[in-house]
């Protein structure tokens, strides 16, 4: 346990041609007393080294559950993985023994959370918590670990890192705490970093700083970044490709540029229309009408149909598959072509 691990995981031995991390047809459900909630229903996405995938969706769309399933930190029960594969360097994580999987956490795939204050143990100084990564995974001495912690705190741009090593989480501001969380997450040079709404709890200027930091760290170490967010503004600058989730499914997948230019799914279009613009002054803000679907009682057919302005008869009966619309972009709408061309509705 305390021995130095140079080669993170044994699975990296043979060359693998696919993507670094691939989620394939993942299905996760929660068995509650009220019934079975299908939180993730056939999600497929992949991310490569140096690439940023933004997973966009509102609360309950399954974006965080997917991430937690990748990490293997989903509470089971009540969570159950019903099917699908999660391949990291070609090896399926879901069938891997827990002990091996644990070695991948932190070293191969790492994660940061929305609220950094509650994601840091309140009882220990931050330097100690960052250093712990090195003591546990790399077997460094306390002194070495503290030195490494200072290095990392410098790397995530915490001013006066050396002096603040022994401060406790509550003594830092929100942005600084998120930097500490990031420092812990990148301590072991993971190949994939999952950021679950990393800026939601922060104010706008700090949000931008944290996003810049993540982008910078990604450039330095060429890691893959999965950015989970519900904030379209955050995504635009950093992400390469976007997966939009709704009701446990991916409803649209596209490159950032394509998606912002011309959405191919009514939900994405609704989201984009909801962004307030300067020229809208004096008008009512646009909002997607209705509420997100109840996972216990999903609407028939397309989960979005009760809120969709383009709704046709077959939307209430047939579940639309995620199909290629144009080039690399895919959309799960019976009328994606029309939405894309702006003729529907």
């Amino acid at each position, binding site marked *: *346990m305390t021995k130095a691990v140079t080669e993170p995981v044994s699975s990296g031995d043979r060359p693998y041609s696919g993507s670094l991390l691939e989620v394939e047809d993942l299905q996760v459900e929660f068995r509650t007393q009220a019934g079975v909630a299908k939180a993730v229903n056939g999600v497929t996405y992949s991310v490569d080294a140096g690439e940023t995938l933004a997973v966009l969706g509102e609360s309950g769309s399954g974006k965080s559950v997917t991430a*937690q399933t990748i*990490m293997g*930190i989903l*509470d089971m*029960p009540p969570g159950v993985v019903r099917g699908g594969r999660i391949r990291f360097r070609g090896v399926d994580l879901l069938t891997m023994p827990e002990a091996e999987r*644990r*070695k*991948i*956490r*932190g*070293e191969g795939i*790492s*994660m*940061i*959370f929305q*609220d950094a204050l*509650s*994601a*840091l*143990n*309140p*009882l*220990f*100084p931050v330097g*100690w918590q960052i250093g*712990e*990564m090195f003591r*546990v*995974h790399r077997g460094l001495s*306390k*002194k070495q670990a*503290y030195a490494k912690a200072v290095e990392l705190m410098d790397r995530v741009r915490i001013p006066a890192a*050396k*002096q603040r*090593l*022994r*401060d*406790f989480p509550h*003594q830092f501001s929100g942005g600084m705490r998120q930097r500490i*969380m990031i420092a*812990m*997450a990148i*301590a*072991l040079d993971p190949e994939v970093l999952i950021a679950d709404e990393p800026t939601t709890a922060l104010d706008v200027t700090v949000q931008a700083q944290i996003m810049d930091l993540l982008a910078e760290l990604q450039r330095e170490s060429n890691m893959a970044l999965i950015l989970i967010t519900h904030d379209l503004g955050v995504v635009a600058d950093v992400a390469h490709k976007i997966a939009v989730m709704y009701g446990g499914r991916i409803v649209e997948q596209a490159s950032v540029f394509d998606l912002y230019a011309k959405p191919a799914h009514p939900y994405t279009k609704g989201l984009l229309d909801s962004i307030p613009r300067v020229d809208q002054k004096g008008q009512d803000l646009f909002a997607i009408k209705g509420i997100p679907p109840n996972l216990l009682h999903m609407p028939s057919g397309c989960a979005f149909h009760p809120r969709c302005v383009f709704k046709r008869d077959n939307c209430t009966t047939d579940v639309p598959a995620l199909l290629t619309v144009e080039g690399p972009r895919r959309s799960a709408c019976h009328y994606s072509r029309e939405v894309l061309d702006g003729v529907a509705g």
Partner: protein
Amino acid sequence: MSDPVTIQTAGVAAGGEVQETTAPGSGKPRSLWQDAWAELRKQPLFWISLALLAVFIVMAIFPQLFTGKDPAFAELRRSLEPPSAAAWFGYDLQGRDVYARTIYGARASVVVGVLTTVLAVLVGVIMGVIGGFAGGWVDSLTSRIGEIFIGVPYLLGAILILSTVAPAQENPGAVLITAVVIIVLSVLSWPIVARIARSSLLSVKHADYVLAARALGASPGRIIFRHLLPNSLAPIIVVATISMGSYISAEATLSFLGVGLRAPVISWGIAIADHTDYLRTALHAMLFPSIFLSVCVLAFVMLGDAVRSALDPKLR
């Protein structure tokens, strides 16, 4: 020490443990424990109870410091003699010095109080943590086992067990007699600690930092000992300090009833029991042990109260 740079170098040696957080203070409290200590320090109740307990603990370890007399030396002709210059607390039924016996009686009470707490907390925390961390049927099992013991009325259970277990040996020594009482008391009281440990653990089990620790590859052991236990320790500490007093009074009660400690062990409870019949003629023989017992129990309860108000931010 107010320079942060010196703090950094001074604290390195301490590292790793919970105690580390009580490392060199730069004036303002920082960790939960430092904060609690700063709060505790301000309370007169804490210092009073601490001073009393210090006296009782010294009394338990070195009774010779307080009295030169042999507590077992009996002179029947002095039976129930009232307090005098030669014997401050007078003599008991057997003509033994009440002061010496009261001083020596502290040992049994302190030992029973402290060891029962240690044992009950140890077993309780282990069971509570196992149940709370594992969940599912393991949790049900440990909780039900605990409930079996909680279901037995405390004193009735103790009397029942002690009156059937105790006479196993002809002439048991002081250590054996005390050990039996300690074990019986802890067997009947660990589930209370287990319940608190379990509920406290459950309240932090779903904290984000536990999730984060798992996401960063921490093992279950590390999660328990670094994240769950330290963060759920406060209520356990409070219960442990408060219950120390109640174990002492439980011991006295059992000894009074004749099933707890017995001669050759010297105990306040026995002294009180031996002299209830002489209440009107020789009050002193049971008055002084009673006062010592009350003050000792009170000291532990006050300490528990002080600790609770220091550890629970809601009580401030």
